[in-house]
């Protein structure tokens, strides 16, 4: 076990200290002279042709400086992957909330008033809100031009409203089911949820006198925003600069262009800077939420609990627009959970409807299949009279197993230690049965793909050493809350043997920092951490080489510590970082710069390996105790345990913070959050009725960190941000079953549903 000075330590987040004092600025906090306020006009219809838009009255309102529609754009579409979305509606609107026009005015009130003066003539079209109906050949078509959208070819493109259909098959599922001693079949449904960040989407756009736009945006992916915005408006990328300041939570929702092109158009047309911020109502009606799902599973097992066969199917309601980075081929894999099942037949369908659009939400496409399979495994275990944790241990994947469908081979699998830790916890905490109280367990898996070649998910980092010896790290990464800058500082500090606090981090500006695909995927430390490590090692080599030259020894004769490089056998002969840095600047060597990139060679090798093996999948197991009030159906979460394999915890307190936050996130999904839709209209577009977990909902949480190192991650690190949310809903559902004998298979598990189920079972 390597002993590190800074790595593996729970150092406080001094790089983000400004968030405690009000110093840290978020996109909506910036202001510029002459700044205007923007507002968007949203469609009131779920599906309608736009016959005419008359902006003349709105334009005449005193204080209004610009009104834009799609007529002000080149008429292109955009999307993070599937480019199905216009900047402002062209020809038709596809959901209640679809942006149709936008206004820039001297103040917010005038902008709102002007919205009412925009006259849009709509011709209503038949709409479809049910994904099963949308799959029928005679259904209204949400996107008739869908075959022309980029990428034009992708595996699984369906017909009509079916965005994607896919199948994963291995072995002989019918034979496997026939050979099973027990077969359990059931269906599950899950709801749409919002990312729930407390800071709404916000942008400020200013166009300089040379026609270059600067965009301050609450985004986790400034480079993606720049590319998308430039492309959709047919501007050269060099004319668009995107800066991400502090981001008030992302959880997947801020990685795609939305407000930026609209605000840019307003800034161009008005000749003034424009600030555009979404209201909470707009967040909950016209942004990209999680797809809702219908899932069917049929699982066959031997009477000793060994899984033999799984038949599964999901149908995703994907709303009017689709903004994920992949179709859903990987989502099908999640249906099988982290289990070895020799015979599988798994299908998935993703369907357009005229509902609110869908995009990335923490652990995209994973919590719904996880809820299904983890509830299902418990039900089967109950049927067999076996302990649910034992059944998971028996069938859980290990090194050398293939992904479902005979896919890549899994390596460095850390599932078993999380199961064992959970077993230990239960042995310690679970006492004799108490009335209306119960315990449940569940697993979760994430990170089954290595590198996304489509987005060039490499990263880069630069280090410069200033003439006074200050080490500056330059990265394109944003910190949406995860503490990435501190993590990187810890890595630099470990390599250069300087205090992490002393490392300055410059970040997230497309003009001055290197390309970065964006924080997320539970892959930031894993991808960018390596670039940072390489940059620090590169800078160190240059320092050592210069120190050796100046002290007239070889590099092997040198040691260094706390900013001082000295001769091992004669430590009085030494040079400081400052001396070396200034000396370098004054010489032909110039500024000391460390460059960190996943080298081409290394990248290609890793890629090739990635296709055949997965070494950094991340697993977790949770246990939860609940109490159910049979008179009201209210569920109280009493105790919570979460064990997660993270490969290597660079900062254990950060990891625990992700676990605790992930459990809260999952509790909302399990018990209270839902974007409630009726005929395409969101019924609860505010924080009163869209219920995020509060401090009162939280149980005590015990976190357990497992470290099974990965081969590629820095110091063996894997990731943690997303898998922590996955086991929560099924663990709670399983605990409710243990407590009061009802199985709720439809999220969220509200008191009404429990009450009805309890009374149904008694009548």
């Amino acid at each position, binding site marked *: 076990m390597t002993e590190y000075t800074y790595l593996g330590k*729970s150092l*406080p*987040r*001094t790089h*983000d*200290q*400004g*968030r*405690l*004092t*009000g110093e*840290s*600025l*978020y996109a*909506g*906090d910036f*202001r510029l002279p002459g700044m205007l306020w923007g507002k968007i006009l949203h469609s009131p219809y779920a599906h309608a042709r736009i016959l005419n838009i008359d902006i003349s009255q709105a334009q005449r309102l005193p204080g209004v400086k610009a009104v834009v529609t799609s007529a002000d754009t080149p008429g292109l579409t955009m999307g993070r992957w599937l480019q199905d979305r216009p900047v402002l509606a062209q020809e038709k609107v596809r959901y209640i909330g679809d942006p149709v026009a936008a206004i820039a005015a001297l103040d917010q*009130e005038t902008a709102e008033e002007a919205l009412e003066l925009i006259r849009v003539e709509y011709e209503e079209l038949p709409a479809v809100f049910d994904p099963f109906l949308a799959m029928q050949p005679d259904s209204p078509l949400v996107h008739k031009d869908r075959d022309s959208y980029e990428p034009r070819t992708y595996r699984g493109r369906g017909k009509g409203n079916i965005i994607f259909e896919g199948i994963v098959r291995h072995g002989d599922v019918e034979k496997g089911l026939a050979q099973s001693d027990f077969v359990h079949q059931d269906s599950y449904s899950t709801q749409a949820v919002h*990312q*729930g*960040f*407390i*800071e*709404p989407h916000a942008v400020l756009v200013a166009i300089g006198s040379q026609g270059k736009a600067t965009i301050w945006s609450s985004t986790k992916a400034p480079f993606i925003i720049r590319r998308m915005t430039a492309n959709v408006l047919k501007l050269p990328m060099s004319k668009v600069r995107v800066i991400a300041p*502090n*981001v*008030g*939570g992302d*959880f997947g929702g801020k990685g795609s262009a939305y407000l930026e092109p609209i605000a840019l158009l307003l800034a161009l047309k008005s000749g003034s800077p424009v600030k555009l*911020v979404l*209201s*909470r109502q707009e967040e909950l009606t016209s942004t990209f939420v999680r797809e809702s799902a219908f899932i069917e599973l049929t699982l066959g097992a031997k009477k000793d609990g060994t899984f033999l066969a799984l038949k599964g199917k999901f149908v995703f309601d994907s709303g009017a627009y689709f903004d994920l980075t992949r179709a859903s081929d990987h989502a099908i894999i999640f249906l099988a959970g982290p289990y070895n099942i020799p015979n599988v037949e798994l299908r998935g369908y993703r369907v357009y409807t005229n509902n609110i659009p869908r995009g990335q939400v923490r652990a995209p496409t994973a919590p719904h299949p996880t809820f299904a399979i983890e509830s299902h495994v418990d039900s089967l275990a109950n049927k067999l009279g076996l302990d649910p944790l034992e059944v998971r241990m028996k069938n859980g994947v290990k090194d050398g197993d293939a992904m479902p469908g005979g896919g890549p081979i899994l390596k460095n699998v850390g599932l078993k230690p999380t199961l064992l830790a959970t077993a230990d916890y239960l042995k310690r905490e679970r006492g004799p049965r108490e009335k209306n109280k119960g315990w449940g367990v569940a697993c979760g898996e994430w990170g089954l793909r290595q590198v996304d070649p489509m987005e060039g998910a490499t990263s880069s980092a630069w280090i410069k050493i200033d003439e006074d010896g200050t080490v500056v790290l330059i990265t394109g990464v944003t910190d*949406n*809350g*995860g*503490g990435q800058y501190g993590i990187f500082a810890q890595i630099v500090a470990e390599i250069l043997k300087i205090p992490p606090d002393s490392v300055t981090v410059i970040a997230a500006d497309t003009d001055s920092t290197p390309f970065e695909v964006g924080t997320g995927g539970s892959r930031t430390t894993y991808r960018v951490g390596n670039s940072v490590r390489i940059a620090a090692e590169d800078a160190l080599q240059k320092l050592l080489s210069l120190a050796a030259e100046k002290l007239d020894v070889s590099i092997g004769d040198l040691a260094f510590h706390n900013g001082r490089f000295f001769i091992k056998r004669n430590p009085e002969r030494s040079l400081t970082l400052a001396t070396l840095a200034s000396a370098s600047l004054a010489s032909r060597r110039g500024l000391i710069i460390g460059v960190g990139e996943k080298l081409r060679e290394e990248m290609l090798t890793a890629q090739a390996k990635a296709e055949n093996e997965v070494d950094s999948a991340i697993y977790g197991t949770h246990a939860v105790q609940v109490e159910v009030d049979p008179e009201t159906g209210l569920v109280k979460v009493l105790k919570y345990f979460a064990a997660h394999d993270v490969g290597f915890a660079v900062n254990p*307190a*950060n990891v*625990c*913070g992700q*676990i*605790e*936050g*992930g*459990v*809260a*996130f999952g509790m909302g999904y399990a018990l209270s959050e839902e974007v409630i839709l009726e005929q395409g209209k969101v019924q609860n577009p*505010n*924080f*009163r009725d869209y219920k*995020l977990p*509060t*401090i*009162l909902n*939280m149980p005590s*949480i015990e976190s357990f960190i497992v470290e099974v190192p990965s081969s590629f991650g820095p110091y063996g690190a894997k990731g943690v941000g997303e898998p922590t949310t996955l086991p929560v809903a099924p663990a709670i559902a399983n605990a409710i079953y243990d407590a009061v004998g009802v199985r709720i298979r439809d999220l969220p598990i509200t008191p009404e549903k429990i009450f009805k189920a309890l009374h149904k079972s008694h009548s």
Partner: protein
Amino acid sequence: MKVPLKFTVNGVLREVMVEPYHTLLDVLREELGFTGAKKGCDSGHCGACTVLLQGKAVNSCLVLALDARDKEILTIEGLAQGGKLHPLQEAFLQHGAFQCGYCTPGILLTAKAFLEENPHPTEAEVKEALVGNLCRCTGYVRVIQAILSCSQRGLL
């Protein structure tokens, strides 16, 4: 029509022109540049806009600016004194009680007002006091620990 408003913010007397329908939140942020109070929902549900009005924690999005006339306001910018962090801020730093930081100013000010009323609370009392502050990142666990640590040390 704008009318004059005089009030004290972080110990300094301020005078601004405001519309009668402007909220305290909008005036603090837009007229005076105190952007530490955040707009999360503008409807009094998230607590990100919390400031102290005459020492009491209020959702500034629900307070009309004119109702603050001649009163004293403390925003997050006024919590640290003379370049030194307030014990609550120090505790949040040491306990990792913040992540994205957007809800943090509201939580810190709510906690300050609460601990001044109830210097030695139970964990249950801390949770009751903070129920109006939503946080999506932390799961609240370290927030509770940080606040309790301040009360235990009696450092207020």
